[in-house]
């Protein structure tokens, strides 16, 4: 027996509240207060595009990270070199010990694909970091200068943007070819060339985002509150402008992998055959397309699926972050 009986009114009220809470349960307010990113994430969790993309990317990254554990053989040793005669059209296809068969020098194709994933990821990531780093530096400088205004600001913005225009006037592939031809073929060349080609894109994107953020009311409000200009640029505008840049990074990973393949095809790829990389493998294997198509098909599929994964993820992120498409 309860010592203090509840007053009827209170009981009734409590019941009412419970009933209401129950009715409103599923409509609980989840949007308010959540950051744009949390919101975007929850939207992405519902998008099949994002899930597919993320799954591909996760699998790819896992393979790349765990490559040495997964690969059953050395990707370099020509263990079965006496079984393959490319000049006589003798190749070895998939079999029990070599799941993807042997390459043209008698190496285990599966191990090369697995280790290749790691190299490919490395190329993509470093190229993206180069593009992102340099591009964000240039774009951020120009953007901050433009937002802060003043004569110097405008001039700085102008100078940087003219430079970016210049780079933009060189179509990306030409830019990459020129860079690669300049420093000679190596893994680093590929990464730099592909990265440099992405610089103007990142720079313009960040500058554009910063300028549009600079026009927002909250910046005006911060100004009105006497917050220092530099502080506004660094702590308010910049972080709020990163969305499109981060999306672009994801997309650039895909572009980098594809562009790296193109450079390899043009003979500007990584020359060290002991580090298999999908682009180089594809470009190399094209010679055998008529006699041993699978040598080209494995790396081609690898590139396409991975690039697709990153693209899907990037596109899903873009959609999730785009206020216009939030519906």
């Amino acid at each position, binding site marked *: 027996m309860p010592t203090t009986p509840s007053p009827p009114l209170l009981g009734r009220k409590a019941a009412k509240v419970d009933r209401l809470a129950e009715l409103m349960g599923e409509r609980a307010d989840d949007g308010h207060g959540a950051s744009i990113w949390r919101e975007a994430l929850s939207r992405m969790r519902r998008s099949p595009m994002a899930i597919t993309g993320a799954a591909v990317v996760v699998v790819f990254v896992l393979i790349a990270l765990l490559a040495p554990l997964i690969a059953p053989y050395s990707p370099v040793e020509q263990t079965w070199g006496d079984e393959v005669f490319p000049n006589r059209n003798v190749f070895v296809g998939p079999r029990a010990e070599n799941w993807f068969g042997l390459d043209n020098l008698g190496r285990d194709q599966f191990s090369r694909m697995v280790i290749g994933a790691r190299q490919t990821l490395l190329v993509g990531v470093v190229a993206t970091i180069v593009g992102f780093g340099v591009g964000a530096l240039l774009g951020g400088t120009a953007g901050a200068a433009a937002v802060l205004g003043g004569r110097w600001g405008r001039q700085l913005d102008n100078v940087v943007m*003219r*430079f970016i*225009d*210049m780079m933009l*006037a*060189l*179509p*990306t*592939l*030409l830019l990459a*070819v*020129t860079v690669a*031809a*300049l*420093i*000679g073929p190596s893994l680093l060349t590929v990464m730099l060339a592909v990265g440099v080609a992405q610089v103007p894109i990142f720079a313009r994107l960040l500058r554009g985002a910063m300028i549009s953020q600079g026009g927002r009311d909250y910046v005006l409000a911060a100004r009105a509150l006497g917050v220092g200009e530099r502080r506004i640029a660094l702590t308010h505008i910049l972080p709020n402008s990163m969305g499109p840049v981060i999306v672009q990074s994801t997309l650039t990973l*895909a572009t980098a992998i*594809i562009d790296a*393949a*193109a450079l390899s*095809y*043009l*003979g*500007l790829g990584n020359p060290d055959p002991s580090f298999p990389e999908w*682009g180089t493998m*594809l*470009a190399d294997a*094209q010679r055998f*397309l*008529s006699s041993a198509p699978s040598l*080209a098909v494995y790396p*081609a599929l690898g*590139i*396409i699926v991975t*690039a*697709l994964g990153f*693209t*899907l993820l990037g*596109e899903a992120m873009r959609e999730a972050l785009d206020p*216009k*498409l939030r519906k």
Partner: protein
Amino acid sequence: MLRFIVRRTLQLIPTLGGLSILLFAWLQRLPGGPEYALLPDDATQEQREALRRALGLDEPFTVQYLAFLRRIAQGDLGASLQTGRPVLTEFWTRFPATFELSMTAMLIAVSVGIPLGYLAARRRGSALDFAAVGGSLLGICTPVFFLAFILKVVFAETLGWLPSAFRLSPGLTRTDITGFVLLDAVMTREWDVVWDGFVHLILPGLALASIPLAVIVRMTRASVLEVLGEDYVRTADAKGLHPGTVRTRHVMRNAMLPVVTAVGLLTGSLFAGAVLTESVFAFPGIGSFVYSATQERDYPALTGFILLIATMYVLINLLVDISYSLLDPRVRAQ
């Protein structure tokens, strides 16, 4: 309007000027140096040194650059090391081929991409939409040279429907007026040449179109989706206008604005994309020449071609900006 054009044109000067410095500096520093490309494999070190002196490669950078600028101003881009012919001549003899190829690719991209993008947007979520978006993603993610290869294997080697290489069948006689194969052939009514030129453009055109097509599909789709949600489209519907009128005058006219910009940028980049496609299809244009120029360290040709391609790219973008401002009265007013 005129002021807009003048201002935009003036903006090109520092861009191109800076570009020329950048290019010149880059190419001067390419390893190997032109003296290696000029001489046969077994030339002696002394011969190479002599050539360096003769070429003025031992002079200070600024001296070399000023001489370079002076020559450019006179329309002299030097002679190609590979062929010994003037770079400008090389460019213009190859330009028509690449132009026709790029235009074919763009035509494919635009004529397929825009309707497809529109339909995908109109039927958002349908199988068509899924196929269009998926296909365009696939198009972007497939290395162009691999795609070109597959196209050749399927249509040229296996089916034998289309030629796998060249711009025209060997031995075909044609009257050359402007260098533009199709244009000349139409002017002279050489219909066999028109047809031959056309079938030779299909495969490389398709390969080159893959990326612009993918971009245009997705761009059109996104743009149409956005415009379809705009109030003025609802207004147009509320006026009871024919769906055709609404589609052309109200939806497409607005949705095409960003697509026009993209088409411009893509057209410019096609000249670079041609490097891959042309070399796969042995298509004798700017791209295959640039490719062999990088292989052969053909300095003057590489400098000249990149400068000309960049100029062309910049000019195309100027044209796009101008046409954009014609299409969008809001930009014009600024």
